[in-house]
């Protein structure tokens, strides 16, 4: 195949499909075994220094913050991250010193809330390197190729731009139409971190609302760590199997963490905690402030349960449920 144009971005997370098949054969059990464990154990066992990670959900929505905090607490280093509209998760990991490389579709910003001081400072000073650019569909379809077990997938996006020039994609001619197509390499993250509404102890996961790209991500990643709002009986899953987004065989760890996405939003359960995110964005204007935040909410608590108490406990979570239901304003009563 003749390559007509080539992005110069680093190609993270690619494996020869046969190599990956062998890895799967050796490492992914086919039988339903109990995978319940604590967040601490899941991170200890499955997140290694230097891993390429990807986080499920989208932006501030349905991200497993419980695992993010634990990765920082356990001081993992030199992680690479697939920043597929990564917002609060990547920001905290960067501030915690965990990240060295980023493939970027969207990072260093907080959508409507503005740009991220911590993330920008790290990139502009060179402590964190963006090694490739892509787009949201670029990531989506890189995961799809990996989930399908094929080395690349053609798409009609990215071409003609600097986003392509700094990506890991290539352009070739479609042998059928004769048009140019963009070839996106498969992306197998070492670890995917996904928060779901419910799972059984084996890892059969159901998500309410948009799946975003978690269907493909869970099937592309080598290790899948799931946090769930609740662990349900296997019968609950079997009664409504059409709601299962991720069947057990892709999942390596199941951790029950109610409110595990806080301060992000969990559709139908609780809205994002905007005052808390504002506190983060304000404190991270300085290095001292950033350290203050980490000391208070990450290193100053032993686990996510203690963190939840510190951010307002059950009472606060109930308020956020009212915001989610559009029964209470985002910024509290003063607005």
């Amino acid at each position, binding site marked *: 195949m003749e390559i007509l144009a080539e992005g110069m971005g680093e190609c993270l997370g690619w494996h020869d499909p046969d190599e990956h098949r062998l890895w799967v054969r050796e490492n992914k059990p086919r039988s339903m075994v109990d995978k319940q464990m604590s967040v601490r154990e899941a991170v200890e066992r499955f997140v290694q220094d230097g891993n390429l990670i990807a986080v499920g959900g989208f932006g501030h929505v349905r991200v497993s913050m419980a695992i993010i905090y634990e990765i920082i607490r356990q001081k993992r280093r030199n992680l690479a991250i697939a920043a597929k509209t990564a917002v609060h998760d990547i920001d905290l990991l960067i501030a915690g010193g965990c990240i060295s490389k980023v493939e970027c579709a969207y990072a260093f910003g907080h959508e409507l809330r503005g740009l991220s001081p911590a993330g920008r400072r790290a990139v502009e000073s060179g402590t964190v*390197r963006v090694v490739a650019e892509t787009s949201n569909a670029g990531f989506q379809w890189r995961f799809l190729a990996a989930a399908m077990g094929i080395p690349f997938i053609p798409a009609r996006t990215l071409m003609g731009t600097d986003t392509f020039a700094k990506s890991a994609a290539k352009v070739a001619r479609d042998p059928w139409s004769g048009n140019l197509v963009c070839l996106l390499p498969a992306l197998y993250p070492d670890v995917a971190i996904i928060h779901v509404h419910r799972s059984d102890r084996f890892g059969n996961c159901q998500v309410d609302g948009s799946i975003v790209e978690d269907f493909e991500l869970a099937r592309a990643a080598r290790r899948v760590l799931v946090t769930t709002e609740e662990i349900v009986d296997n019968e609950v899953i079997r009664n409504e199997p059409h709601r299962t987004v991720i069947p057990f065989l892709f999942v390596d760890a199941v951790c029950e963490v109610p409110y595990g996405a806080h301060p992000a939003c969990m559709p139908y359960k609780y809205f994002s905690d905007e005052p808390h995110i504002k506190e983060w964005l304000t404190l991270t204007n300085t290095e001292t402030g950033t350290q203050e935040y980490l000391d208070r909410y990450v290193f100053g608590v032993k686990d996510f349960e203690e963190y939840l108490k510190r951010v307002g406990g059950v009472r606060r979570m109930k308020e956020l449920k009212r915001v989610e239901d559009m029964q209470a304003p985002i910024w509290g009563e003063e607005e």
Partner: protein
Amino acid sequence: MSESGYSQTELLACSGARVLEDGRSIFVGTGLPMIATMLAQRMQAPNLLLIFEAGAIGSQVKLLPVSVADSRASHRAVAASSMHDVFSFCQNGYIDYGFLGAAAIDAYGNINTTVFGDWARPKVRLPGSGGANDIGSLCWQTILILRQDKKRFVERLPFITTAGYLHGPGAREAAGLPKGCGPYRVITQLGVYGFDEETKRLKLLARHPGVTVEEIQANSEFEILVPAHVPETQPPTPEEQRILREIDPTGLVLRK
């Protein structure tokens, strides 16, 4: 709020909304595109089909979402699907409009939202493409909304994040992008723009109340094509302003 009785943001939102025709489908980005689309759906375009990249299809949004993925964005949707689904049917020609914000554009409607300065060691690092590159590549008509000044309407972008007409007629197709699509309108606080059929360069279509052609040109580094007759837009109406405040009661976008 100016003495005219409306703010610059309200003017931008209303101008964005008025461009949208009923019965079309639209891929909506966060912020101004979102509030403009919601306004259009309550005004002239009740059958506008809203699509959000996280997977919501056919939403009837009540309150302004903070993110395209939160449940406000899928309010009364007909489907809460996936990113693979919506970008795939976008690639298949189902989506008429793509509505995007931008940090800076050039005369061909190319967008930069990635970086100022050197890419490897940036002076200012911006968030990057997100879904913008895909929306700009795959929707039939892209609408851009941004505040205009000489730093945002530039001769040469340091980085093309999202394709407009690239370097002119035929360039998109030559690069491999789907045929027959590209930037359609640019909305700023000074005016509404289209693109010249022949050159694919930015062309003034209308100026906002009280804005002169000189002002419009003075706020752009590149030359804007100006036809002989340039009509003036209507200011935001009290009804539009009321609806905007209903959509965004806490001023997430309107107070910016």
